């Protein structure tokens, strides 16, 4: 399973680098979204600071949805998924590989997004990088665990790209709430308190659920 998952992740990353809607497009989309949020909230950075972590997390949510929504449509082309299923490879490798690759794409989005956010929203206080890293990484883990499963599930539907966000965002509401609260803590607003536990609990629950249910989500036509 380990080698197969690495192979899937490598394939996903090659697609992310070379594909039409690859990582570069997702990063550009995130930068644009952040700029739009800054325009929408107006130039008064001081007023925006209270809810600015919300703008950051909304950007990552939409970028994440954008990154995930094509991930199983690609498998449908040229019967790639059928090929994978009959290859005898562990089916969970597909989940783990896509999860790992998704984490790297989100990491790239955040590596660009966070500095842009600090620039656009004029953050002047201290930035506790380890805490910020933990908040983003834990948020991504839960978001992607639920997201990869739901992307697989909705890829069977007509207009699946419309159904996917409809299913993804309600499921990941706890990530949004806890992500915003812990990121605010990392940017100098309190300690985050029980939100860290909620985030960890969500990650554990959805990793377990997704591993359990992923094979059922692969039902092919």
């Amino acid at each position, binding site marked *: 399973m380990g080698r197969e998952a690495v192979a899937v992740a490598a394939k996903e990353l090659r697609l992310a680098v070379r594909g039409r809607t690859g990582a570069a497009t997702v990063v550009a989309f995130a930068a644009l979204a952040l700029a739009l949020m800054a325009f929408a909230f107006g130039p008064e950075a001081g007023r925006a600071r209270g809810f600015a972590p919300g703008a950051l997390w909304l950007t990552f949510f939409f970028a994440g949805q954008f990154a995930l929504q094509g991930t199983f449509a690609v498998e449908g082309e040229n019967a790639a998924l059928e090929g994978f299923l009959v290859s005898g490879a562990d089916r969970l490798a597909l989940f783990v590989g896509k999860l790992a690759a998704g984490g790297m794409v989100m990491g790239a989005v955040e590596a660009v997004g966070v500095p842009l956010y600090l620039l656009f929203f004029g953050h002047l206080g201290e930035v506790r990088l380890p805490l910020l890293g933990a908040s983003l990484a834990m948020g991504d883990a839960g978001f992607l665990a639920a997201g990869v499963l*739901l992307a697989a*599930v*909705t890829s069977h539907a007509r207009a699946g790209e419309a*159904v996917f966000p*409809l*299913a993804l965002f309600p*499921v990941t509401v706890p990530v949004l709430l806890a992500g915003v609260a812990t990121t605010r803590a990392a940017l100098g607003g309190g300690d985050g308190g029980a939100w860290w536990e909620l985030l960890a609990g969500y990650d554990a629950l959805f990793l377990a659920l997704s591993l359990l249910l992923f094979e059922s*989500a692969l039902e092919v*036509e």
Partner: protein
Amino acid sequence: MANATGDAVAQVGPAARTGRPTGIPWAAGLLVLFWFGGFMAFLDSPDAQVLGATVRIFYIHVAVAWLAGLAFLVNWMGSILYLVRRDLRVDRWAAVSAEIGEVFTTAVLVTGSIWARVAWNTWWTWDPRLTTALVMWFLYLAYLVLREGVSRPESRAAVSAVVGIVAFVDVPVVFLSTRWWRSIHPVIEQNGTFALSPHMLLAMFAMLAAVTAFYVYILRLRVRQEAARDAIEAMRLRLRSRGETS
């Protein structure tokens, strides 16, 4: 042709022939239950100390909330059972139950909002109970929309089972939200005892019994309807294939 019709009717049961799916006894029973529940809730039970007569919306609000939870519980059990047994009839029960649950969640949100205007002086507030209930409404909306989009029955059943299991994670959270977090939403049951007078308690349970019976009735009716729809679809396919061969 006669054969095909006979097969389909055999699948649906005698109800398809008579056109009376569950009959007079159900209607009479429901009438009695709702009459009794309504009498207890609107005439027999006392006004509340602070909220006055507006407290009576409580009996409807709690009853529909209970039903939404029950309906989603049935959906969750059906979803798990489908993945274990791969029986499309189980999927039918689960789907219909989610549909009913979504309708009743809408009723919970509407009655709650009306009551909140009276009790809290606002139509909506981001209280944990309200927030988690709204998320529940969105989750099962996605479940129902997803079902519409998948045409192969086995695929539809499997993917909706996955979403049904994931969506149910929120249901106990809705129930426990008033205990876990600081909430302005009242908690009427604590450690098995209720913060209600005996008459109010009786009215509440009468309404719970009435809506539960209504749920069982409507669930069976809709399952039968869906079975008939599937039978007709199968018949149509058979006729079409016969037309192509002759």
